[in-house]
């Protein structure tokens, strides 16, 4: 449950990875794709590269609606490791694993960081 503690520690100032978010998190997508993320993220965690696999993941996330500027909200979490998550992307509901959700960077709305 490590990822959840990240977001719970103190007030959020910056962006977080969607995969680290807890239920109730609401915000705007600011970047999609591990390659875009590794430029933006400061903690170095998002730095990973797997060429083709990541490029494919990025396109799939884009095609299903995770695009910069989209509104997202984590609606539900699975039981084991709180994985997968159900996310509302604008008008649509999408289920995905936290691992994939980590390729999405979110700017949370103030006060909507989600349950600690």
């Amino acid at each position, binding site marked *: 449950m490590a990822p959840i503690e990240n977001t719970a520690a103190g007030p959020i100032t910056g962006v977080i990875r969607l995969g680290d978010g807890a239920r109730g998190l609401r915000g705007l997508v600011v970047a999609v*794709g591990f390659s875009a993320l590794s430029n933006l993220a400061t903690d170095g965690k998002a730095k990973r590269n797997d060429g083709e*696999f990541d*490029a*494919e*993941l*990025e*396109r*799939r*996330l*884009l*095609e*299903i*609606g995770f*695009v*910069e*500027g*989209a509104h997202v909200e984590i*609606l*539900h*979490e*699975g*039981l*084991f*490791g*709180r*994985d*997968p998550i*159900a996310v509302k992307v*604008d*008008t*649509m*509901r*999408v*289920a*995905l*694993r936290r*691992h*994939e959700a980590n390729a999405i960077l979110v700017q949370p709305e103030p006060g909507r960081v989600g349950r600690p």
Partner: protein
Amino acid sequence: MNVSVPTLPSLRLALVGNPNCGKTALFNALTGSRQKVANYPGVTVERKEGNFVSPIGRPVVAIDLPGTYSLRGRSPDEVVTRDAILGRLEGDQRPDMLVCVADATNLRIMLRLVLELRNAGIPMLLALNMMDIARYRGITIDVDGLSAELGIPVITTVAVSPDGTQALLQQIDAMANAGLASTEPHWHALDASEVRDAHHLADRLVDRFVSHPANDRDWTRRIDRILLNPAGGLLILLAVLFLVFQAVFSWATLPMEWISAGFDWLAQTVSAILPAGLLSSLITDGVITGVGSVLVFLPQIIILFFFIILLEDFGYMARAAFLMDRIVGGAGLHGRSFIPLLSSFACAIPGIMATRVIENRRQRLATIMVAPLMTCSARIPVYTLIISAFIPNRQVWGMVNLQGLVMFSLYAAGIVSAFAVALVFRTFVWRGKSEPFIMELPGYKRPLVRSVLLGVVQRAIIFLKRAGTIILSMMILIWFLSTFPAPPEGATGPAIHYSFAGIIGHALQPLLAPIGFNWQIAVALIPGLAAREVAVGALATVYAIGGDASGSALSQTLSAQWSLATALSLLAWYVFAPQCASTLGVVRRETNSWRWPVAMFVYMMVLAYIASFVVYQSAIALGG
């Protein structure tokens, strides 16, 4: 202008759109077909054609396609769509017109695809489907504005209401009358930045032309709060499955008795009318007893499908996949594997077809290989027959029916072994990276009485057809093998011992003795390779001809003739044994090689023998 003009040239029209937006529902409404419609993404995995005549009398060929989010063709079902639209299939004409179908409550993703579909060079129109739901939720769409901005006609439809396709039909005629001119496709696979640009364009369209009310009357979120509750959701899923199998068992008892009584009466009447002899034996022992013993299970099939269709139409399947993702993922399967596996409860064949939505070939193969371990409806007759013969019909823990409980355990055994085999597959055959699990969760919909009933009737007809064709012909074959040759002059013992069936059964029996099968079971298992239910009919016929049945129900005959160990061993056999030729045929077709069906046959056969051996020997050791 409704004079029909017989000389109008025919029109080919393809339905494209995101998964679950109602393409097949529209296709059915237009053509009067009965293709499968259900409330989860990935129902249609093949292209289907149907015909209809437009209001002004133009013959139209409609093509229903699998849903997709892009034309890239990642998985086999998406490839079907791409190739149909781009005309890449050998000997297949490109459609003259595209009907882009969008879920009006979720327009954004489809508008993105519409922008991509322009590159296909085919005249198109946009149908905003599910307009009834959009209206209920207070979503308003400026149809004319959208149409002007996109430069294509936009109309609204309600695929599930009787006159919900009128605007679409009129628009099709209008476009065809104005003349349809396709250009060469100039589509290329979009890269990430092109997808982003198209998305932003689509978002601007949505901002301008679609307005959502402040408080959306969307029930889905509230229902999901209960059904997707982390721990509660899994318990509910288990409870739902458990209740279904209890219902299959207990609700069906009475109608089954009626059907059974009906066939007994029929057999008695026929044997009273016909002179005793070969013809009378063929009709009573072969056809009526054999086929009747399978038809008895119609009520159970109907109840099972009633629940499956209800859950599918409500929108629960995708939730089940969500809840089970970590569990099936632990076995190395894809989250999307769960829906094909659930469909395999009905029959492994649609289940195996449904794996087309899985893009990764290895994970798709793993799912195909374990799908037949899920308890399909053809096993129900076998399980029920043995359970009702050997398991007392009483309540345990207050309200749980013991027979239903055993049935549930057999289903559980199938599921657990499917996961175990998948894990073995994952560990030894393939260790690659897991594909991402990204799946749309559709909104819940109230199941329509008419479509649920139609679906159930359709399944009942399939079952009856099987009984009338494959099962009937197998019964006649078995009757023949059990009757000829006649015993030699002065032979002692029942005549059937001297027949082909007797000879084959006795020859195989030593091989099956370690797992406790007698020669009658051996005889039943061979035709049972064609279809599982055949074994039930075969046992009925073999015992009837052998004279052991003495007019009583087959289950009473069995409980008198078999030991409990034998019965349990046969149940274990049926959890694993590859007793279905059509499944192997579909695996051959879907994998395009003989390797996988052969591997499947061998591994299931070996597992079946081992399981039966262990069950039989332990039951014997425990004094069964």
